[in-house]
């Protein structure tokens, strides 16, 4: 099976421990060509470890990891010349300017100069770093640094890229424009493996793997994943959501309830209904503005899975 | 005592403990240097290839040659080569020096005590040449002594030879190394310890707390003083017990002056840390500005007196110059506090000036 497989990334029963800590415990998945694959999970779930193994920076304890059909462990040079990788908290040359950093990475990846120029303009459009071209990287704001790091990585266009939390500290506007770039790349056939802490970004992936504690608990398209959340979900709107939340907690409510910006999302099994919810709130004298059913998002699913994984 | 200061010190010791590799290097390095200087890069030389031309063939000349060859400084590789081959012998490195005893050596010796022996030295390595000539002067002196002459063959000797009759170079390099290493360790470690926090961003958190800058500075300086001191004691112990360098003067005085000297080094490190923003630069700056002047200009290798005048002035602002006089004085000559007041004063003055500048320059905010 492995021989005939031409998917850019294939991972089969991967295991990796650091001493007594089992960081990755039997993970299997494939990333198809031209796909944006999101690896989502809480801190310490093992996402970074997987990415590092795929780009050959770490060796797997056991299991199979194929990059374009070749075993990563045996073709390190092949992997490194064909992969684009942006590590978590990647820091640039602080003493070089924005432009010098971009040029350096362009040259490093042997990108022809005219292509470099064109790409630089494209990337400035998303990063808004154009006006700061001559500023030293060390003097950029936190988010600007992150955007510069991303831009440097995107100066070349390898057909497989792995991004570890690329949008860390990036503002919402730039994030959405960055994802436009990723979409465009994917349309052109680039394969992308990405991790993120933003659940709205998870919705933009073609497929999402949800990782907890070194294991992949769910893997599918976002819409299919959401079907797993097949119980009614209500938003209890309130101007002080945390008080609602704390009240539910104090009432020892057994269902699922999570804090959101505009209120608390509540669910409690398939037969939970609006009436039951109202009764619950009134019994506990919890104030609220309104109650309405809401479509669950990946954030709801994530929080639920995390809770079940923890228990 | 000041709780804040204690906390900073405790934390700094914890950093040191968490990084055993660095600690090991810091502690092992002086010993390695010591052995390198002691054995590999010997500044004293033995078995120097020597050509001997005896044109006299008298009992006296033979006696003199006998003296030369009986030491293990010289290794006779050629004898009685003709005059026109002198240069060739030196060029081909068959010998590094040629001793020529003139035809009338014995005769003249009886008539006139001021007799000349010719010594031709390959001076392409001036340091070596210097040593060779000193060895010969020494031997000549002994020869004269033995032959009960009233007058010596004229020769000059460095004053330090007086206290190092066996010409043991460890007498110089052990104190010298202590000077170099103490300064380097204290300057390097303090500057890196502060700049590292700037680089890691941890300084930002400290700066928003009500800590005073002298607390940060002293809290960081003390742990590295302790390490520097341990290093000093290690070198001192190895130097004394292994290389048999005497400690003629008071040990307490020695340790006390070391602390002053370390303090000078720390002050220098502080200065470096206030004007640099990356560990790399701090390290380079500390290395270049301590090692080079200390080795070249302090009298560690080249005596200050024989330097061009301008460098003699420069050497005055190098802490090691004064410390070398102190430590050599105490270890080799056994001098006491009274004779060292000037040097100690200089050290304290340098430390004071450096400190004043760095406290002025130390920034309690993130301003560039």
């Amino acid at each position: 099976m492995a021989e005939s497989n031409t998917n850019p990334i294939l991972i089969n029963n991967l295991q990796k421990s650091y001493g007594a800590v089992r960081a990755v415990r039997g993970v299997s998945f494939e990333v198809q060509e031209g796909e944006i694959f999101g690896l989502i999970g809480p801190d310490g779930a093992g996402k970074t470890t997987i990415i590092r193994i795929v780009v050959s920076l770490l060796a797997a304890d056991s299991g199979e990891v194929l990059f374009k059909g070749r075993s990563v462990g045996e073709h390190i040079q092949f992997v490194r010349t064909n992969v684009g990788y942006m590590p978590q908290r990647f820091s640039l040359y602080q003493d070089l300017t924005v432009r010098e950093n971009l040029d350096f990475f362009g040259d490093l990846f042997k990108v022809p100069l005219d292509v470099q120029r064109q790409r630089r303009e494209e990337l400035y459009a998303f990063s808004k770093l154009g006006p700061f071209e001559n500023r030293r990287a060390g003097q950029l704001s936190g988010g600007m640094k992150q955007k510069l790091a991303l831009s440097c990585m995107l100066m070349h266009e390898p057909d497989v890229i792995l991004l570890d939390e690329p949008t860390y500290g990036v503002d919402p506007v730039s994030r959405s424009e960055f994802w436009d770039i990723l979409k465009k790349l994917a349309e052109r056939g680039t394969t992308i493996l990405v991790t993120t802490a933003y659940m709205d970004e998870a919705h933009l992936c073609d497929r999402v793997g949800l990782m907890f504690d070194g294991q992949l608990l769910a893997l599918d398209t976002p819409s299919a994943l959401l079907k797993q959340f097949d119980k009614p979900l209500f938003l209890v709107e309130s101007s002080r959501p945390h008080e609602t939340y704390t009240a539910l907690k104090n009432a020892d409510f057994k269902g699922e309830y999570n804090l959101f910006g505009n209120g608390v999302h509540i669910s409690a099994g398939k037969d939970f209904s609006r009436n039951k919810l109202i009764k619950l709130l009134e019994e506990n004298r919890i104030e609220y503005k309104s109650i309405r059913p809401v479509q669950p998002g990946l954030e709801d699913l994530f929080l639920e899975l995390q809770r079940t994984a923890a228990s | 005592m000041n709780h804040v200061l204690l906390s900073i010190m405790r934390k700094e010791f914890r950093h040191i403990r968490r990084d055993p590799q660095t600690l090991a290097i810091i502690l092992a390095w002086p010993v390695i240097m010591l052995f390198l200087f002691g054995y590999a890069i010997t500044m004293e030389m033995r078995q120097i290839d020597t050509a001997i031309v005896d044109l006299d063939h008298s009992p006296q000349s033979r006696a003199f040659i006998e003296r030369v060859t009986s030491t293990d400084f010289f290794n006779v590789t050629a004898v009685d080569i003709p005059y026109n081959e002198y240069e060739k012998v030196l060029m081909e490195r068959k010998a590094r020096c040629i001793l020529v005893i003139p035809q009338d050596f014995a005769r003249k010796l009886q008539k006139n005590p001021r007799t000349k022996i010719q010594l031709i030295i390959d001076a392409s390595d001036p340091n070596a040449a210097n040593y060779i000539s000193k060895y010969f002067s020494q031997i000549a002196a002994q020869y004269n002594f033995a032959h009960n002459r009233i007058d010596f063959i004229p020769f000059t000797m460095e004053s330090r030879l007086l206290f190092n009759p066996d010409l043991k170079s460890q007498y110089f390099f052990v104190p010298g190394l202590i000077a170099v290493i103490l300064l380097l360790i204290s300057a390097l470690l303090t500057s890196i310890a502060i700049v590292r926090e700037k680089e890691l961003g941890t300084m930002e958190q400290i700066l928003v707390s009500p800590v005073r800058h002298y607390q940060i500075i002293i809290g960081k300086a003390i742990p590295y003083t302790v390490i520097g001191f341990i290093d000093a004691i290690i070198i001192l112990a190895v130097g004394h017990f292994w290389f048999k360098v005497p400690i003629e003067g008071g040990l307490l005085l020695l340790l006390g002056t070391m602390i002053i000297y370390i303090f000078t080094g720390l002050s220098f490190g502080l200065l470096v840390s206030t004007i640099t923003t990356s560990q790399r630069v701090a390290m380079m700056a500390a290395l270049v500005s301590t090692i080079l002047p200390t080795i070249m200009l302090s009298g560690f290798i080249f005596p200050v007196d024989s330097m061009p005048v301008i460098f003699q002035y420069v050497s005055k602002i190098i802490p090691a110059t004064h410390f070398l006089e102190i430590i050599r004085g105490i270890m080799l000559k056994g001098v006491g506090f009274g004779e060292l007041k000037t040097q100690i004063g200089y050290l304290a003055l340098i430390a004071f000036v450096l400190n004043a500048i760095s406290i002025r320059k130390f920034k309690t905010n993130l301003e560039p």
Partner: protein
Amino acid sequence: MTENNYAVTAENLTRKFGSFTAVDKVSFAVKKGEVFGFLGANGAGKTTTIRMLCGLLQPTSGQATVAGYNVYTQYEQIKMNIGYMSQRFSLYEDLTVRENIEFYAGVYGLKRKQIKQKTEELLTYLKLWDQADMLTVSLPLGWKQRMALSTALLHDPDIIFLDEPTSGVDPDSRRNFWLLIYELADKGKTVFVTTHFMDEAEYCHRLSIMRDGKIVELDEPQRLKQKYHADTMQEVFLNVVNEGGSDK
């Protein structure tokens, strides 16, 4: 004095780096006990403003007070009254959680016995007992941030500045972090917080949105949403920030 009702005030506060104006005449006032959100695109000037308020950078011009103290002259007093969590994790990764807390307890001048007591109190409060003796470097980000918060709270400051405390933190840990922020606010502390998560923006009592060094919106989340006819703060934010992009 009216100033006493305010934890933080700024009046035409400005900061230039060379000829570039990073913060351009911002004025605002944060009430005591308020959770004040500080939003803005990357490079808008949020961190620079916070650093000026914390005495880490000097204002080029304008006035500001923190806890009633002047930022130009009374930064020593200010430092006693504020907690600060910088955007970049700024605790010691080669020390354990406990050692970090102990260190900062000492820095804030606590006595030995107090240090011990306070450390235990915080470890309990932050539910970090199991991690107490782990090296910080091995902690997941969410826990690191919690620990950073705890050290910022050691001296029980009245005003807490949090610069992007939840960036990169997973959904669950983010929520726990915000519950801590609320607890602080309920105790009457003033919390000054920046974030790029727009749902978190809605947790704030009041919000300001910065663009190119200026504050362009300052109001309650609810009213901002009404003003922009938006359902979420995300929409409001995109509107505010893009408006600037188009008219420039």
